[in-house]
C-alpha cells in the first residue's frame, strides 16, 4: 500500500523549500539586473545634470586701450582668475567690432572659470582660499550664479571645460550617420529583397546568409581595421572624415538592416504575393507595389534600431581617426570630424574634474537621443503591427 498524503507531504517539505529558493534567487537575479540599471542611470544623472548649468559672474569690464592689447587688464585683479579665459580672449575682437565700447566701463555678466563653476556646485576646486572668499562675496551680493549652459550645446570642443560643448560632435554624428544611412539602407534592403524574394535556395544563398549572421557578431573593432586598411590606406578616403566613419559604420549596420528587413518581408503573407502574381504582375512589380509597402514599417523599425546602434559605436571610429579635436562646428563630409561617443571618450581622458561633468552631460544627451530613437522604433512597430 502506498503512503498517505500526509506522509508524502512531510517528505516534501525540504523539496518545497528548495523550490521556493529558486524562485527567490531567480527573482533576485532579475532584480539585480534592474538595480544595475537604476544605479547606472542615477550615477549618470547625478554626475551629468550639473553640466547643463554654468556659473556666471557679474564683473566690471573696463574696455580700455590697454585691454585691447592685454585682455586680462579688462577686469580687476581680484576677480581676474575667476573669469573664463575664453571670454577674456574675445574682448579685443569685440572692441574692434564695436568701436564705441572703447573707454567705457560696464558691469557685465560673464562666463566664470570652470573652477568657480565647480566651487559653486559644491565640488572639489583648485581655487585658493582667498579666491573662494571672493566668490562667496560675489554670491552673497547676487553677482555669481548658476545659469543654463547654452555654450554646452552651441560650441565645439575646447581645452577649457567651461567653453567646451557638444555641437561639433553632434554635427559630426549627423554627417556620419547620413553617410551610414545612405549606404547601408539601400544596400541592406536590396540584399534582403534579393534573399527573400528572388534568390534560389542554393549553396551560394546559404553562404550569404551564414555570412550575414556572422558579420552581425564580428567585434566592431575589426570593422575599424577594415576601414583603416581598405577605405583609408587603399581607396584614399580622408582620415577622420565623416565619410570614412560613415562607410565603416554602414558595413556594421548592414547586417542589422538586412536581418530586420528579411523578417519584415517574411511577415507579409504569401497570399498577397499570389494575388499579385495572379493579376499578371512580374516578380519585381509584386515586390515594389505590394510587398515592400506592407513591409515598410518593419524595415523602418529595423533601420532606426541599426542607426541607434551605429550612433553609439566608438571603437571602429577611433581606429579610423575620428577622435579629432574639433573646436568649430563644420558640416563637411571630407574634413576631420568627431562624433558624440568619440567626444565622450576624449573628454573622459581629460584630467580636469570639470570634464567629468562634461563627459556625463554628453552621455546624458547621447542616451536621451538613443532612447528617443529606440522608443520611436517601438512605437512604430506597435502602431503598424499587423496580424495576418
Amino acid at each position, binding site marked *: 500500500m502506498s503512503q498517505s498524503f500526509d506522509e*508524502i*507531504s512531510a517528505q516534501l517539505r525540504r523539496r518545497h523549500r528548495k523550490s521556493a529558493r529558486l524562485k527567490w534567487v531567480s527573482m533576485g537575479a532579475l532584480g539585480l539586473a534592474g538595480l544595475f540599471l537604476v544605479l547606472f542611470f542615477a550615477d549618470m544623472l547625478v554626475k551629468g545634470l550639473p553640466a547643463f548649468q554654468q556659473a556666471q559672474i557679474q564683473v566690471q569690464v573696463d574696455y580700455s586701450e590697454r585691454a585691447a592689447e592685454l585682455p586680462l587688464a579688462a577686469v580687476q585683479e581680484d576677480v581676474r582668475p575667476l573669469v573664463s579665459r575664453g571670454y577674456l580672449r574675445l574682448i579685443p575682437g569685440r572692441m574692434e567690432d564695436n568701436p564705441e565700447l572703447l573707454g567705457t566701463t560696464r558691469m557685465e555678466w560673464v562666463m566664470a572659470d570652470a573652477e568657480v563653476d565647480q566651487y559653486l556646485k559644491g565640488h572639489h576646486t583648485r581655487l585658493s582660499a582667498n579666491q573662494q572668499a571672493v566668490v562667496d562675496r560675489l554670491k552673497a551680493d547676487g553677482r555669481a550664479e548658476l545659469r543654463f549652459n547654452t555654450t554646452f550645446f552651441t560650441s565645439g570642443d575646447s581645452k577649457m571645460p567651461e567653453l567646451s560643448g557638444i555641437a561639433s560632435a553632434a554635427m559630426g554624428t549627423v554627417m556620419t550617420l547620413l553617410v551610414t544611412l545612405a549606404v547601408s539602407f539601400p544596400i541592406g534592403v536590396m540584399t534582403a529583397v534579393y534573399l527573400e524574394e528572388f534568390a534560389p535556395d542554393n549553396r551560394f544563398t546559404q553562404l550569404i546568409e551564414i555570412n550575414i549572421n556572422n558579420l552581425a557578431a564580428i567585434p566592431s573593432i575589426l570593422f575599424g581595421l577594415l576601414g583603416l586598411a581598405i577605405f583609408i590606406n587603399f581607396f584614399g578616403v580622408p582620415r577622420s572624415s565623416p565619410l570614412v566613419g560613415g562607410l565603416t559604420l554602414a558595413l556594421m549596420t548592414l547586417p542589422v538592416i538586412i536581418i530586420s528587413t528579411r523578417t519584415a518581408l517574411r511577415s507579409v503573407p504569401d497570399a498577397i504575393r499570389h494575388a499579385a502574381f495572379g493579376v499578371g504582375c512580374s516578380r519585381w512589380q509584386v515586390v515594389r507595389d505590394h510587398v515592400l509597402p506592407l513591409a515598410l514599417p518593419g524595415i523602418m523599425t529595423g533601420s532606426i534600431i541599426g542607426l541607434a546602434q551605429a550612433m553609439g559605436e566608438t571603437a571602429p571610429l577611433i581606429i579610423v581617426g575620428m577622435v579629432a579635436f574639433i573646436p568649430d562646428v563644420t558640416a563637411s563630409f571630407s574634413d576631420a570630424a568627431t562624433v558624440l561617443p568619440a567626444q565622450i571618450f576624449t573628454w573622459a581622458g581629460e584630467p580636469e574634474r570639470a570634464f567629468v561633468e562634461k563627459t556625463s552631460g554628453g552621455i546624458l544627451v547621447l542616451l536621451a537621443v538613443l532612447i528617443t530613437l529606440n522608443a520611436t522604433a517601438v512605437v512604430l512597430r506597435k502602431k503598424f503591427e499587423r496580424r495576418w
Partner: protein
Amino acid sequence: MTGHSAGEPVTRNEQANHELSVRVRDLNLWYGETQALRDINIDVYQKNITALIGPSGCGKSTFLRCLNRMNDLIPSVRIAGLVEMDSRDVNEAKMDEVALRRRVGMVFQKPNPFPKSIYDNIAYAPRMHDLVSRKADTDELVERSLRDAGLWEEVKDKLQEPGTSLSGGQQQRLCIARAIAVQPDVILMDEPTSALDPISTATIEDLMDKLKQQFTIITVTHNMQQAARVADYTAFFHLGELVEYNDTQTMFSNPATKKAEDYITGRYG
C-alpha cells in the same frame, strides 16, 4: 436516470472491483467566464480501467486533469465541488499538489520523454522521491518498471541512449514505465494512443489490461472501440456534463440515455 444514486454507474459490472478510488461530487470548472464542467458526479473504482469518451471539447480531458490538479497550471481556471481521494479533498488548501501527483500519475497524448537517457527517464523520479537510493535498487526498479511496461526486451541493451531515440510507441511505453516507477495509486491516461500506429496501440492496450492488476487507470479516448475493448466502466461526456456512467458492455450494447446512444451509433461526434 433511475435505480442508482448520483455518481454510481447505471449498471454494475459484476467482474469489476468496487473499492472506491476517487469520489467526485458536484464538480464545476470555469475557464475565465466559460464553464467547461457542470455538476460532475462519479465514483471511480480501484484496479479498474475507466474510460472517458465523448466528442472533442466535451470536457473529458479537463475532467481528467482535475484529478491530479494539472489545471492549476492554467491561471484562469476556477474549480468548485469535491474531488475526494483517500478521504481527502484534493482541492483543499492544505493539500499539496506535488504529493497528490505522486499518487496520481499521468501519461500524455504525445509521448514526452525527458532529455535524458532511457535509464534516467525512469530512475529520475524515484530517486527524487527517495524511493530508491542504492544503485542496485535503482537498477532493479528500472528493470521492473520497463518489464511491466513491456519495454525491457527492446531496450535492455541501450539503457544509456537518449529516451528520444526510441520510436513513438516505445516512447509512450517509456512514459508509462516512468509513471509506474513511482508506484502511484491512479494512472491517468490522456488519449495515450492517439499519436501512435495501430500496432503500438494494440501493444499499449494489452499493457493497460495487465496494469489494472496493480493500478487504477482512468483513460480518455477518442476511439470508442478502444473503450469497448479495454474499459470496465465507461463515462460519456457531452458539453461539459457527464451524461452517462455505465458498465462498458451495457454502455455499448444498451445505453441508458439517448445522447449516449446517438454518439455510440455514430449519429454525431
